[in-house]
């Protein structure tokens, strides 16, 4: 919880009204993004994103698993976010748990698409190893909030996107003569790897409504003054892949459509920015190793 005096509250709200926020940004400007990839050697892919004082880590692990019987030619993905109490005392106990589930389900909604797989950022059928065999890749995506200063969903979305582009899946050899109703023997190569296709992974843009205006990338102080927030995930083609609303106050339907078009506009810049940052981080990562 942020304790703000009445004067501070008015200052924040007044600034947003005049398109000049307390840290000098405009309403639709992000804080500088700092991005690192390949920071966790045990994981198949990892990334760390800093957005001002917000600091998150995402890691991706791939493991061999059994596909869901109802979708035999698809892999599985699970997303879990941990809000550690080291980031903020209020994350201790149930406070952190609630936020964790909220963030995890919002990310699932934004990245995994509909039930038939349309609009999914991660193509589940690419995780299938051999069609009809009872073996597939399970993707475990874990997010960790190290330090929180607002806008955690966007930061986590960016970190997961970077971690996925850093992810390598080992090449496997499946013995062909095994009967199809049994789990086949799999030979996992530890030298040859496949890159993961991340072109479809969307970016998440959260628009926070403070007073009569909405802002992107709100800090904790600004978030404490919000009436509601809309998180939209948008892919490279400009299509909407998911939407979540937070905050209790109601929104007029036209405002919702307004925020969607504003998010679309902002997402193009964010997508380009992230792409170049990820490319730079990957290059830096390769130089070191």
């Amino acid at each position, binding site marked *: 919880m942020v304790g703000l005096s009445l004067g501070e509250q008015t200052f924040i709200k007044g600034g947003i009204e005049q398109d000049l926020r307390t840290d000098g940004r405009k309403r639709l400007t992000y804080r500088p993004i700092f991005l690192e990839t390949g920071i966790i050697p045990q994981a198949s892919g990892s990334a760390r994103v800093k957005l001002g004082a917000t600091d998150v880590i995402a890691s991706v692990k791939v493991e061999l698993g059994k596909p869901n019987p109802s979708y035999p030619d698809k892999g599985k993905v699970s997303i879990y976010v941990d809000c550690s109490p080291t980031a903020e005392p209020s994350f201790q106990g149930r406070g952190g748990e*609630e936020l964790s*589930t*909220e963030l995890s*389900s919002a990310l*699932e*909604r934004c990245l*995994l*698409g*509909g*039930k*038939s797989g*349309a*609009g999914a950022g991660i193509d589940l059928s690419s995780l299938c190893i051999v069609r009809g065999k009872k073996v597939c890749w399970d993707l475990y995506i874990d997010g960790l909030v190290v330090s929180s200063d607002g806008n955690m969903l966007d930061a986590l979305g960016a970190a997961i996107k970077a971690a996925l582009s850093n992810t390598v899946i080992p090449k496997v050899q499946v013995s062909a003569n095994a009967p199809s109703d049994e789990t086949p023997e799999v030979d996992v190569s530890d030298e040859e790897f496949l890159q993961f296709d991340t072109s479809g992974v969307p970016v998440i843009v959260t628009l926070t409504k403070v007073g009569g205006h909405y802002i992107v990338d709100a800090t904790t102080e600004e978030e404490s003054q919000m009436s*509601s927030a*809309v998180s939209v995930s948008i*892919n490279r083609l400009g*299509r*909407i*892949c*998911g*939407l*979540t*609303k*937070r*905050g*209790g*106050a*109601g*929104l*007029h*339907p036209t405002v*919702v*459509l307004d925020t*969607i*078009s504003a998010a*679309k506009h902002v997402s193009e810049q964010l997508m380009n920015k992230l792409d170049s940052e990820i490319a730079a981080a990957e290059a830096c990562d390769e130089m070191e190793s």
Partner: protein
Amino acid sequence: MTYCNRAACYLAVLKTGAVNSSSGSAYAEFGNTKVIVSVFGPRESKKAMMYSNAGRLNCNVSYTTFASPVRGQTPETKNISAMLHRALEGAIILKSFPKTTVDVFALVLESGGSIMLYDMVAAVSVSCIGKNLLIDPVSEEESHQDGALTITCMPSRNEVTQMTVTGEWSTTKINEAMQLCLDACSKLGKVMRSCLKEAASAPQD
């Protein structure tokens, strides 16, 4: 626009006063989905809670074990309490009962689709399959959907209190689906209103 034949909600059955011991309760039926909701309070918040000038809203949605074809919880059901909470939060004047808690408990008896609604907040979901938009999808339709959009709104104030979207959508499609949902919400709002009026004018026994 191409809608499937069934671009209309199931006939909704609504009854108030389903549970005697609660401050207010209702039973709702949409096709095969049957839900009981009871509201308790406002009563004194637990001692462990911090002092608060505004009242608290506590929502809990539970499913009977036989509610869905597959026994036990599915991932979607876990999140529904939080969704209900957010949907109702904006509609209740929490400031009018400081230091107290209002509890809303919902029990899904049978789930044949997805619908949640209570108070004067109406909720409607739309499924997108191919180019078609289906309102109030049943379970089978939901399992094949390309995308889903759920809106809860306060029809008389024309405000959206909760909205979620999954799957891939273009802006025009979202527009279309939202309009469809909002129209259905206002119809549902009327059903709820008339149901409440009936219950209020009925002789007390």
